[in-house]
């Protein structure tokens, strides 16, 4: 019950953020966005024709009215149709969002899970060769750009110069096997790069936790190493780790899927957005911007609830 009220309160508190984003996107994309009047008119239009088209497009309405129309579109999830394909935006999203999620999740989960595991091992053997090896690997992942990693893995797995095992572009998740064939290479590239950053960060967090007073106390009471690692070090490290994971969600969704989808020719939201930016497809851009803001609010909410789970000092009040 307490959690339910909290979620409700947080969602309400997220409304101003979403409103702010809609206002900005309205001003930039719609109000001062491309003017379609002359696209729709023939040569040498008369002043009357211009005025008529403008009124059809709603351009003659005052700012507030137009903004309200825009908000109504958002609330009813009716974003209109794509200007280039005429497909309804809602059906475009229904088609592409699941693809993007299926593409992003394996890399996201593995990148964090492996990051924590490798960081634990490195922290435990800190200063020894295991630590140096892991951190060297992380440094490579961190210094190689995402693009290079993508191209490298494509050559390795999907070209005649490499193993030539997996498809280089495209997407199919009609069967689990097909899904694995298509998701593997993008996932490897994501994990490789994500591990670089994650491992370093998580190792620093864990090493710091290892030097805390409560760890010394636990040892002074004979706590064996495995329990010390789990109850004292890992459980306390989860607080900064959860923070990082939660804040990385929107970044992954936006930048990760944009790059991955365009380089692997995968028809996800990222690809659609990229194309919409290139062609100036307003209805799609409006939808994506607003949905991203909503995603931020939800990620924030999830983060707060996760904090409560890992840290009893945080109250949901």
């Amino acid at each position, binding site marked *: 019950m307490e959690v339910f009220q909290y979620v409700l309160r947080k969602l309400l508190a997220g409304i101003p953020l979403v409103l702010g984003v809609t206002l900005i996107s309205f001003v930039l994309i719609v109000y001062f966005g491309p003017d379609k009047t002359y696209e729709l008119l023939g040569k040498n239009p008369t002043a009357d024709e211009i005025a008529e088209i403008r009124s059809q497009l709603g351009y003659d309405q005052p700012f507030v009215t137009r903004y309200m129309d825009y908000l109504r579109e958002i609330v009813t999830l009716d974003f209109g149709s794509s200007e280039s394909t005429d497909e309804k935006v809602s059906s475009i999203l229904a088609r592409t969002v699941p693809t993007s999620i299926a593409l992003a999740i394996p890399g996201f989960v593995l990148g964090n899970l492996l990051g924590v595991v490798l960081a634990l091992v490195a922290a435990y053997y800190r200063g020894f060769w295991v630590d140096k090896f892991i951190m060297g690997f992380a440094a490579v992942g961190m210094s190689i750009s995402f693009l290079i990693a993508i191209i490298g893995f494509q050559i390795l797995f999907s070209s005649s110069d490499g193993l030539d095992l997996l498809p280089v572009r495209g997407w199919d998740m009609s069967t689990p096997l097909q899904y694995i064939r298509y998701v593997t290479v993008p996932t490897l590239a994501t994990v490789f790069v994500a591990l670089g950053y994650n491992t370093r960060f998580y190792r620093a967090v864990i090493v710091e936790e290892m030097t*805390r007073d*409560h760890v010394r106390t*636990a040892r002074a*009471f004979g706590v064996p190493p495995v329990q010390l690692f789990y109850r004292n070090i890992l*459980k306390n490290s989860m607080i900064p780790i959860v923070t990082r994971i939660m804040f990385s969600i929107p970044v992954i969704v936006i930048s990760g899927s944009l790059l991955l989808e365009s380089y692997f020719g995968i028809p996800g939201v990222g690809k659609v957005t990229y194309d919409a930016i290139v062609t100036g497809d307003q209805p799609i851009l409006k939808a994506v911007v607003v949905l991203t803001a909503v995603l931020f609010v939800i990620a924030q909410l999830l983060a707060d609830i996760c904090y409560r789970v890992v840290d009893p000092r945080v109250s949901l009040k």
Partner: protein
Amino acid sequence: MASTENNALLSVRDLVVEFETDQGVLRAVDGVSFDIHPGETLGLVGESGCGKTVTGLSMLGLVPSPPGRIASGSIMFDGSDLVSMDETGLREIRGSQISMIFQEPMTALNPVFRIGSQMRDVLQRHQKLTRRQAHSTAIEMLAKVGIPEPAGRVDDYPHQLSGGMRQRVMIAMALSCGPKLLVADEPTTALDVTTQAQVLEQVVRLQKEFGMAMILITHDLGVVAETCQQAVVMYCGRIVERSSIEALFASPRHPYTAGLLASIPRVTDERQEVLPVIPGMVPDLLHLPQGCAFAERCSRVRDRCRQKSPRLELLQSTQTSVACYEPNA
């Protein structure tokens, strides 16, 4: 205090603890020796940084390593040497035979577990109690250290308790398995003055009740006077004076001890006079002068003091050992 006595509970001999630092090897504890008998209280005194905590941690094999290590010496406890004992053996002893409580009550407990869970863990591990037995023992122990409503408090998280209460929880946890030796590292320093007195009183009362020996680490000689039978005064990692409390307060032999005593405010004094402080600064452990480390601050310093460090020697016809060429009469 003779080193040949073998009925001591704990015998520390020539303990040397070193830290590997960027600027070289730092010797935090240098040749420390003392004995504690069952039920006895020994005060370990000295200014901040003189090696008290490191000495205390050595008793549980807890010198942070790396960078630290016990370079030499022995710590005989109940017939076995803790210095050469392996981790498994030490884990059996930690919290059951020898317990330690720390200076920082605010951070010493695990913030993400209830205090009851942390206390039960110790009891279930060392005493092989069931969860239910451990729970009721935990509540009993909380009651013993003066925590009101222990049955409710046992389910609190550390952050729900004040510093004084947290230190009581630490004490309850430390005593829960009936250890033979308690190492109390400045247990009241971080608390406010009224709480300090209450917590200290509690420790001393429980120590008598449990018949434990205790090493009470403090920088406050006044506390030592009230609670200890013996005192060891440290300076720059070395023992400068070791004696019974009566002898120490009646006639401090080492100029440093004398200086510390002179700087304790006395309630019996009619006027509040300006207390003398020992002039000068504690030398850097990485760059100790040749000879006596106290020489720069000592009013009795002679030429030979600067040539070779004085050894800790038993003064004739007394029970006091002192490391000084020119001890007070």
